[in-house]
């Protein structure tokens, strides 16, 4: 079955998409959060008329502009790549996936790009209130843009509100509200955007701390810290709450990803949560992984994983082996069985196509299967698993283990994200407390910690992306389409060339961006001016 797959093409296409998505995601979170922080600052300026607030607003706006440009530059690449590198995917689910992208353009992107021009060039050209409105609308536009992209992404992880049409050989939308308001979409939107708010707050607190350490622009730094730390603290609470909801949703809709996040090989009731863990050597044979894979060290919280996943300490959390091999006691179907059913669904589609115009009776009989909810639920639901079919039973058993995501990467990324999330919340609390006690300026440990937390915020943000995207492998559409069938039929060498072109471009852009940012920060806030 796999001999027809050009794995080099699949892997280079995946690498290119991962590269562009992760590079894009370096800049977007700051845009999402900083836009609101700037809007708060400008609101205070308009309310008080204090020119210091205008100076503060313009400084952060300048950094926002530099960051925004590179975010825009990298965002367009992703939209193009759905077509250029994943053309089969574009057809198979374009009926559903394209709509959020188009609505994003009409509803959000135009708003953002129209009002950002007023935000940057409108000082003195439009009234203060119009300018403030434009700043808020830029923030709303940026976040609305994130909403539609995240709805699209959530749908890939939990495909709902659609029905397969065998005539067109694609999935078609049947309920827009199911797509927009699915629990996966809601929790993904809330968790991802609030993570952006936290990152932006860490960024502002960290840079302002640097000014305090240098004893420059103290009033500017204090005011920036107060706004950012309050925003960051409130966002942290929302981040934890939405993360909790998101994890529960993953446990339900993507149990393999959930098991990978915790490296849970053997399912159990009263499952403990690994707070911190370090892997030993992984066994070469996938059938024997887990049982003899020892953690070099781990700290567990008893019962917590069961509670986290199902709000019951006695709940059974399926492990990787339960999902692959099946578990009758807990009514879990094996991957082997899913592969066989998915293969049957694929063969039914093939037979349906072959019968068209040749055997009307057979054609109608097969068509009826795709309208039969029971058959769809029992067979079509596993359509993507069919790609792992092999007539040799031994090979089929082995193929089942290929539907497991990279465990250690998922595990580490998840735990780094969670631990750092806790650190950020604690930092905001300490900073606010010390500010209230008027002792922040003299506390160098906290100021340095705040400064060095900036890179940690980016690490946490990227880790979150890895959990979401690596943890769901090999699925591009959960259970329906693996990456290997989603790729465009192009030469591997073409993708390799563009991969390296993107890499060179991104490195150059990143160097320019960091140099400009550092220079602007060192220059500090000035009244007006752009240098």
């Amino acid at each position, binding site marked *: 079955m796999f001999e027809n797959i050009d794995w080099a093409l699949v892997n280079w296409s995946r690498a290119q998409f991962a590269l562009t998505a992760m590079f894009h995601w370096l800049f977007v979170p700051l845009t999402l959060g900083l836009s609101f922080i700037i809007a708060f600052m400008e609101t205070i300026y308009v309310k008080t008329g204090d020119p210091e607030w205008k100076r503060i607003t313009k400084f952060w706006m*300048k950094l926002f502009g530099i960051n925004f440009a590179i975010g825009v530059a990298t965002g367009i690449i992703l939209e193009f790549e759905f077509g250029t590198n994943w053309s*089969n995917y574009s057809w198979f689910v374009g009926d559903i996936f394209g709509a959020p*992208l*188009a609505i994003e353009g009409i509803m959000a992107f135009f708003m953002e790009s129209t009002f950002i021009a007023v935000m940057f060039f409108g000082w003195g*050209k439009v009234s203060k209130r119009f300018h403030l409105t434009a700043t808020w609308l830029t923030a709303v536009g940026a976040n609305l843009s994130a909403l539609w992209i995240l709805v699209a992404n959530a749908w890939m992880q939990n495909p709902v509100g659609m029905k397969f049409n065998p005539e067109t*050989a694609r999935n078609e939308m049947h309920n827009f509200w199911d797509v927009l308001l699915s629990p996966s979409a809601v929790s993904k939107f809330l968790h991802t955007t609030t993570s952006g708010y936290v990152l932006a707050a860490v960024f502002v607190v960290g840079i302002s701390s640097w000014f305090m350490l240098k004893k420059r622009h103290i009033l500017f730094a204090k005011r920036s810290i107060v706004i950012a730390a309050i925003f960051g603290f409130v966002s942290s609470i929302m981040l934890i709450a939405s993360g909790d909801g998101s994890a529960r949703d993953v446990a339900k809709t993507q149990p393999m990803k959930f098991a990978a996040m915790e490296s849970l090989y053997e399912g159990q009731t009263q499952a403990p949560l690994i707070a911190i863990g370090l892997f030993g050597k992984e066994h070469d044979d996938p059938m024997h992984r887990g049982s003899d894979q020892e953690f070099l060290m781990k700290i567990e919280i008893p019962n917590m994983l069961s509670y986290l996943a199902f709000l019951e300490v006695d709940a059974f959390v399926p492990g990787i082996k339960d999902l692959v091999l099946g578990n009758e006691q807990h009514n879990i179907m094996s991957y082997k069985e899913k592969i066989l059913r998915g293969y049957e669904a694929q063969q039914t*589609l093939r037979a349906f196509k072959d019968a068209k115009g040749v055997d009307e009776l057979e054609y109608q009989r097969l068509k009826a299967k795709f309208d039969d909810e029971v058959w769809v639920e029992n067979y079509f639901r596993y359509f993507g698993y069919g790609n792992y079919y092999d007539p040799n039973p031994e090979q089929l058993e082995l193929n089942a283990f290929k539907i497991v995501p990279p465990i250690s990467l998922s595990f580490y990324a998840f735990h780094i994200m969670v631990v750092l999330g806790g650190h950020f919340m604690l930092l905001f609390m300490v900073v606010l407390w010390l500010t209230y006690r008027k002792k922040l300026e003299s506390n160098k440990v906290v100021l340095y910690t705040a400064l060095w937390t900036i890179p940690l915020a980016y690490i946490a943000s990227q880790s979150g992306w890895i959990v979401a995207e690596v943890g769901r492998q090999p699925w591009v559409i959960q259970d329906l389409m693996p990456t290997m069938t989603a790729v465009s039929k192009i030469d591997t060498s073409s993708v390799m060339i563009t991969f390296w072109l993107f890499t060179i471009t991104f490195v150059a852009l990143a160097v320019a961006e960091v140099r400009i940012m550092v220079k602007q920060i060192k220059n500090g806030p000035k009244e007006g001016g752009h240098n």
Partner: protein
Amino acid sequence: MFGDLSHLVLQQYWWIIVSLLGALLVFLMFVQGGQTLIYTIGKTPMQRTMLVNTLGRKWEFTFTTLVTFGGAFFASFPLFYSTSFGGAYWVWMAILFAFVLQAIAYEFRSRPNNAFGSRTYETFLLINGLLGTILIGTAVATFFTGSAFSVNDMNQSQWELKSHGLEAALNLHNLSLGLAVFFLARVLGLLYFMNSVNDQDIFVRARKHLVYNGVPFLVFFLTFVIWLMLRDGFAVNPQTQEVFMEPFKYWHNLVSMPLVFILFVLGVVGVLLGLVGSIVRQDCTKGIWASGIGTVLTVFSLFLLAGFNNTSFYPSTFDLQSSLTIKNSSSSHFTLTTMSYASLMVPFVFGYIWYVWKAMNNKPIDEDEMKSDDVHVY
């Protein structure tokens, strides 16, 4: 409301929206055209700064329209998206790189410590202006000339040439539209400079260059249109949906759809009015509006010629029956209905863009504004 419409009406409605977005995109490419003229029209650093800044306040509109054009195409005609983007890989990648470079060039150009120097970022703008216009024009021309691809019964497409889209740039008919779009963008860029920059030197120089760019635009545009009217086109049998070659198909389309004919003629007249009026009249600053509206109408009617009246809008020269029409490549009735409700926001979007444009362009850019401490300058 939209749910009661037939699938065909919704497909036509979305072809009209996509066509309108494509037409607006070509008009907004005055930004790209202007970018190729920064050193031709701006002879001093201050003049160049004014030119870059007047374009820089509009580049996001072009960029956003391109993204929305792509998104709308993806949502309404996904088979086109998967076939063209996944097949003509190198053309779309080249366009993509050209726009990636543009997006950072404005913001980074005048920043201290920007790693590569202002000239590098200005070169990025030049590359974007050159490649962006020619390649998008060339890609759109394939709507009439066809491409070598096939689509199987599972609607999975495959490009049949190893050059993956580069071959489109070697077709003279495609190239004539690419170059027409390039020179049109330069004409519009010049007209925009005359409208938005308060500098006599720039005005005089821009007016002079209207002739140098207007003439080649007309030559390439007429070449493309005359060739188009004379060539065989990709017709669809409305009963069997079979695709076949029809002599003078696009001429037939033009005369079969009188409204499109009128829009096309009005568009061409509008472009010429803005161009010639600005050359002849010494103080004309409004040419951008006549030529801009003319551009939108002309391009809009060309898109309608490609997709309406039983025509394949993305024909296959490799396998005629793989050709894409608005019927066989569209989204489902439900999705088009949903998207149609979203499209009701478009007039509102136009409204606030118009309001902001007026507010920001009320006073042309001048040297004083560039030296002001209160202004963000590129």
